[in-house]
């Protein structure tokens, strides 16, 4: 319990303001949405398809990119090399870019004139206005979350555990798969959830590469610009609810995994 001093009261007041700032608009939106409108949104196949598309494309993007992000995170945590801080800057770059600009950059890369677009074209795949293009746009803006979280996880693995495994006869790859990865797993899952959630909520970058097929954030924008707030609101509420369910589900998975960090503390 915080002691009631003028200072602690001021801190409490300012903290409450921020929390209220996050909660109030969301609560307002929920309160303004009638059950009937929400039911209608659920019954709307366009809405259902767009939410489903958003979820699976973001999940697949996160899953595929994880295979490359985890090794990169490990390198960033364990290796020293020239220009490392520049590489870290590059990893963080998508976070600071305007998302529409990021979308344009991805579009240039995956359009038929772009490097990846041309390569995809040779196998008959068009990336623009395609779930694959959406996945790339989502991944572009959300990979830093997975890389940075996994990097922190690997950095927190005591190096002497890896050294001990080496002296016990493990190859470096075995050390990675039996020691580093399992102990950093919680941070990796957290990063996975963050990347998935960030990708799922992306609008700016995705709308540049694919207006159709429509992901939920684009559909919400389309409903809003064509029909107004009242039409966009139920879709937003439904999407937020579904996203929350997934978010909580994935968080539970990560919490239910054994808490190795507690064990690490007990050991040191």
């Amino acid at each position, binding site marked *: 319990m915080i002691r009631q001093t003028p200072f602690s009261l001021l801190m409490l007041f300012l903290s409450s303001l921020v929390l209220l700032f996050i909660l109030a608009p969301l609560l307002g939106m929920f309160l303004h949405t009638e059950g009937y409108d929400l039911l209608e949104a659920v019954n709307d196949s366009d809405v259902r398809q767009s939410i489903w598309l958003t979820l699976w494309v973001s999940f697949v993007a996160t899953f595929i990119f994880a295979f490359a992000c985890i090794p990169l995170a490990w390198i960033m945590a364990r290796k020293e090399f020239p220009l490392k801080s520049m590489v870290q800057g590059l990893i963080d770059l998508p976070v600071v870019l305007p998302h529409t600009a990021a979308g344009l950059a991805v579009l240039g890369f995956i359009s038929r004139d772009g490097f990846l677009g041309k390569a995809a074209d040779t196998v008959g795949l068009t990336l623009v206005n395609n779930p694959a293009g959406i996945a790339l746009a989502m991944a572009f803006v959300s990979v830093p979350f997975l890389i940075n979280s996994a990097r922190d996880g690997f950095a927190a693995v*005591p190096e*002497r*555990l890896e*050294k*001990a*495994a*080496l*002296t*016990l*006869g*493990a*190859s470096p790859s*075995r050390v990675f798969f*039996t*020691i580093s990865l*399992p*102990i950093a797993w919680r941070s990796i899952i957290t990063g996975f959830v963050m990347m998935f959630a960030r990708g799922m909520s992306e609008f700016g970058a995705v709308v540049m590469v694919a207006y159709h097929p429509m992901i939920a954030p684009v559909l919400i924008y389309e409903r809003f610009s064509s029909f107004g707030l009242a039409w966009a609101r139920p879709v937003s509420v439904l999407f937020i609810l579904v996203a929350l369910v997934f978010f909580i589900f994935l968080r539970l998975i990560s919490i239910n995994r*054994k808490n*190795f960090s*507690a*064990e*690490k503390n*007990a*050991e*040191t």
Partner: protein
Amino acid sequence: MLKKMLRLEGINKKLGNFRLTDISINIPEGEYFVLLGRSGSGKSQLLELIAGLKKPDSGNIWIDNQDVTNKKIQNRKTGLVFQDYAIFPNMTVYGNIAYPLRCRKTEKNIIRKKVEHIAGELNIAHLLDRVTYNLSGGELQRVALARTLITSPKVLLLDEPLASVDASLRDDIRRLLRQLNKKGITIVHVTHDYREAISLASCVGVIHNGRMIQSGPPDYVFSNPVSRFVARYSGIRNFYKVRFINERGIWKAISHSKAGFILSDGSYPEDGILIIRSDSIKIHKNKPVLPDQNCYSAVVREIIPSDYGMEITVDAGERFFIDITRDEFRALQIAEMSEVWISFEPSAAVALNGSG
């Protein structure tokens, strides 16, 4: 002649601002070698070099008559136990001990037999199915030892094995280490505590600022320290900067405060450092009749209880630190500011070579 088990030849290694310089050691099979040094002296780094976690910049490492300098860690026949054991938190005790065998793709039933056997030997068979985070320090130590010993290493490398164990468990672990050594396993044990060296070592090496400054049997090293650093390490606190003079055939050491100490026969440099062990100085209530000994009147400045009994600081022109037992202390009936006499034999005063 005993077989040489571990030989380091002129090992040099730069580690950041620190450097291990020209380290050479010869350790016969079955030896219990204690490497003594302060934290940051390079002793743990040396263990990592022997284990193969780091490569020396120059010099060679021989284990069991094979040059292993460029050999892979797993082919060196060494086992390293880290200071805080480095037990894998994501595995059970069984998983930890079985780990090295799994790395070697040993068959499952053989792994089980070997794990059960070694766990039995180390009295941890009842812990095999346990997770590791709620084990005690002593149990973790045994798990770490079992995990290392299961590969039958020729040289067991221990990094401060007693530092993280409760005082009450240290005797147990010491006994266990002695037993292992008796079975023939060569041990290199790194510590900062000279008492560990005295209680375990058959040979001790003192490392300071990345250099091996003295090695030999512990009795010899601690009674003939080559430098002030080694002397301090063995608990010696009576150091005096002296001039050595020969008066009519008798060697004397004259300190800055003009105190003169009679020395035993020998050859002495012009000046240097004289050390006197705290437990070789006697305290007397009245003036003793000891014509051939050093004998001075003194005032008691401080009395502090110590491991040994009591540590008495007296001022006899020079300050002396003296260790006496509690029984001796009771018999003396002295207090701070008491006037006493102190004495020590000429042979108790040892000259250090060099300034240390």
